């Protein structure tokens, strides 16, 4: 063995040892530069080849190239190993306590009254109704007179009004919308009119001076009381479920004739009797009836040619029933804990 071969042997041994002892990527890189770099030992050996006797050059050259290949392979293998080890270490360092709480982005919520009206609108839309709106500051004429409630009518007692002037008041019901719609629209039409109303009532769990109603009205040729029943039955079943039963009984409103009161079987006790339904098994939902001929006439509609039905319900009350709320004042109070539940 020539001295050159012996030297190559010891370089190989040393290089392989250094590769195997390198315990991080940086040291490995240093080893790589030391042996395989541009000015590294292997290149030095190749440069020294010119001093080797010509007959030995092919053999020595082959050995140097073999060494180069072997070292490259070993370094690559080692690098893969070290990289894998470092990745494992990094992943370990990135470990999270997955039981820490998540970071929540704020999500806005809708008010329960909005949720209810959107549901009600959806149901009535399916029945061919559309939404209209009216004014909250109304004249005595639209709020009472035009609805067949003259100034001396006892029905005014239950609708004590907040007056702004002698003739202007905060509407006590959404029914003025009936007149305003008739003045603008020729039949046929089917509308619901949700809105805010005001009555001079002491605030209690059941009464609020500011509350909301949903008015409904349909006018066409040959609309019948049976159509009123069918419409309200469909509404009640869509909102409260197919299992509820419904009931119509006679009632009195100055602007409908005949008038009725619509009730559903108590959704809390299933009609057995509980405090919500005052142990009657029935919950009153709304007042309704066939539009009074005088009201149609006021609206410029001939009661011989056309007929119609109308209804009015407590919007807050629907929300109270739907969500089991027992104090109407919660809706305008907006307590964060209340609102967070919708």
């Amino acid at each position: 063995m020539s001295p050159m071969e012996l030297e190559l042997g010891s370089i190989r041994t040393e290089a392989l040892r250094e590769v195997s002892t390198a315990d991080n990527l940086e040291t490995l890189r240093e080893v790589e530069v030391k042996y395989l770099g541009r000015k590294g030992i292997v290149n030095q050996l190749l440069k020294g080849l010119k001093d080797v006797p010509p007959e030995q050059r092919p053999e020595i050259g082959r050995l140097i190239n073999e060494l180069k290949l072997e070292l490259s392979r070993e370094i690559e293998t080692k690098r893969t190993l070290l990289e894998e080890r470092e990745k494992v270490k990094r992943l370990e360092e990135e470990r999270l306590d997955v039981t820490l709480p998540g970071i929540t982005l704020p999500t806005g919520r809708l008010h329960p009254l909005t949720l209810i009206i959107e549901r009600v609108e959806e149901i009535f839309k399916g029945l061919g109704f559309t939404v209209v709106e009216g004014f909250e500051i109304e004249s005595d004429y639209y709020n009472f007179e035009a609805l067949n409630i003259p100034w001396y009518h006892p029905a005014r007692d239950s609708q004590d009004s907040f007056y702004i002037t002698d003739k202007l008041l905060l509407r006590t019901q959404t029914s003025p919308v009936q007149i305003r719609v008739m003045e603008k629209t020729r039949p046929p039409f089917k509308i619901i009119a949700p809105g805010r109303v005001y009555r001079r009532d002491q605030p209690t769990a059941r009464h609020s001076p500011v509350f909301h109603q949903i008015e409904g009205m349909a006018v066409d040729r040959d609309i019948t009381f049976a159509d009123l029943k069918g419409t309200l039955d469909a509404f009640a079943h869509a909102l409260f479920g197919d299992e509820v039963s419904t009931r119509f009984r006679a009632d009195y409103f100055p602007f409908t004739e005949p008038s009725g009161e619509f009730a559903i079987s108590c959704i809390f006790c299933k009609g057995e009797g509980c405090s919500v339904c005052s142990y009657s098994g029935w919950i009153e939902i709304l007042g309704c009836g066939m539009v009074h001929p005088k009201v149609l006439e006021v609206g410029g509609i001939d009661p011989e040619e056309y007929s119609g039905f109308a209804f009015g319900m407590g919007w807050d009350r629907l929300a109270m029933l739907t969500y089991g709320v027992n104090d109407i004042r919660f809706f305008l109070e907006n307590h964060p804990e209340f609102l967070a539940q919708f």
Partner: protein
Amino acid sequence: MKILYSWLKEFVDIDVPCEEIASRLTMAGLEVEEFERIGEDYLLDVSIPANRGDCHSILGIAREVSALFNVPLKLPAEPKFLEVGDGIDIEVLSPELCPRYTLRFIKGIKVGPSPGWLRERLEAIGIRSINNVVDITNYVMWMLGQPLHAFDADKISGKVIVRRAYDGEEIVTLDGEKRRLTVNDLVIADERHPIAVAGVMGGEESEVSFFTKNIALESACFDHISVRGTSKSLGLRTEASTRFEKGVDIGITKFASDIAVEMILKLCGGEVGRLSEFYPVRYEPSPIRFRPERFNRRMGLKLTTGDIESVFVRLGFKVDKDNDIWQVTPTSYRRDISLEEDLYEEIVRIVGYDKIPSTLHERITGVVSPPPEWERRKIIRRRLNSLGFSEVITSSFIPVQFDSSFGEFYREQVESIRVINPLREEESVLRTLLSQALLNLAVNNVRWGYNDFSLFEIGKVFFKRDKEYIEKEHLGIVQSGRFIYSWDKEIDASFFLLKGALERLFNDKLSFVPAYYSALHPGRSANIIYRGEIVGFIGELHPDMARSLKLPRIYLAEIDIESFSLDFFKTGLVREPNRLPKLKRDIAVVVPEETQSIRVIEIIREVFDGILENYELFDVYKGPNIPEGMVNLGFSLDLRAKDRTLTQEEVEERVSYLKDRLANIGGRLREW
């Protein structure tokens, strides 16, 4: 109206459980609100609708029961007694307010306590026993619905006159109150002065006492509108006025008086004098046209003419049939029935609403789309929800202390609207701005211990301008505390957080200019401009106001959303995505620190006009490396042309133009 079952049964021949009577009455429109067992008897509390004055008596309810169950009514026998001696002269000067008046003189009676059975009955229905005479008048009123009044005849001077009061005339009523009357009030007077407020309450002076020997018993029919007006203006409601204002049966005036006389003779003794009566025009109910075919068509029913006629007969109505068009005459006590439709209600009420089928009217109607404001509101709600704001709905009334807060928003003279008859101070002023209500809510939230909130309301505001009452729809937002919070990251409410939400909500179409609001922080408030008009404001609540309300930093914004059409919020026609390469260019601008950043942004927009797709201000910096009095603004620009690939040269050309433009405002571009 309290009804004793045993008393009711004296008037109607019925033998069904009381529960069933209660249930049928309720279904027919006379709601039995309470149902109570008293020993062997039952007490019903019936709610009488405003149009059913005829039901304010045992007789009235008995008539209903008779019609509903088709059982005979039992009327009391015609009273018989001997008239001896004189009466008291009467004179009715206002027949328009008193179509019928009777007065019966009874002398030599003995006033004393009522017998036990009478006292018990009155007490059961909630009436305090006074003496036998007064108790009898109350008893007959309850039984027949006719209010009666007994005067001490010896206190009456001369004849009895029914007339309007003189303005300012006074009377002390039975309750001891001095009442001041006007010409709109009807009184019963003697030749000196009023002795009773007609239909409402008697006078103290002529009250029947235990010393009374001779009485004058009044039974009359007063105009319902007049009694109601007097009762309201005096603030005095009595059992009598309640009945008169809903209308009492003009046909029963004398009969009721005679029944009472008979009872008085039996329980108090005495001799009956002549009846004085005024009843110039006898009331006859008018017949009403009724078309059975139209009835069935309107109700969706198929009742036979026989079914219909039988209902009328049960109600005591007279039917005159002439094939298709009938004439139906209601009874004298059913003054509520004047139209054909009123008769429809009677029929369905008696046969039962449950007999009407349930159908759907399916014709397509004329109006089909909701008003634009309805849709606009929905879009805004959804957008604000996704921006992290929750909806509230507050009262239209605001605490008086916030009456004029943020009022600088209105540049013309406006007044807040007050109700003239508030219940309480809290329900007297209508909000002119939602911010007033939201500020009040913020106070409550903090008081309840909730300091972090991001809330909005879409609602009406009210104001008066040039004698005109105006309602407008506004959007109000209030924000405070932490917006995003966790163990890791936090974002607090701030002017810019709120402004950012508005920019997103309104498609970056708003501009903001500093503005003065006395309730807002002077350095942190702005008007919101859209299309050159001030449409709202934004700002931090003034620290002085925050301190006095015990509030932390509160940010408020309010916008008149009627300034934005529905189309503004709706997605219009869309454009194709630009697939040409995008160039990113970051620039740092150094300008004098008093420069409004909007000026720099305007210059950038102008310089890169046509190729500026988007820009972001990512850094605002003052301090080392930046000259004193200057501020560094770092912008990241997204540049892209619509029709060509942008070259670096073109961009650099614009950047060098930017340098010139910045020099004009004392700024420069900072090289990296």
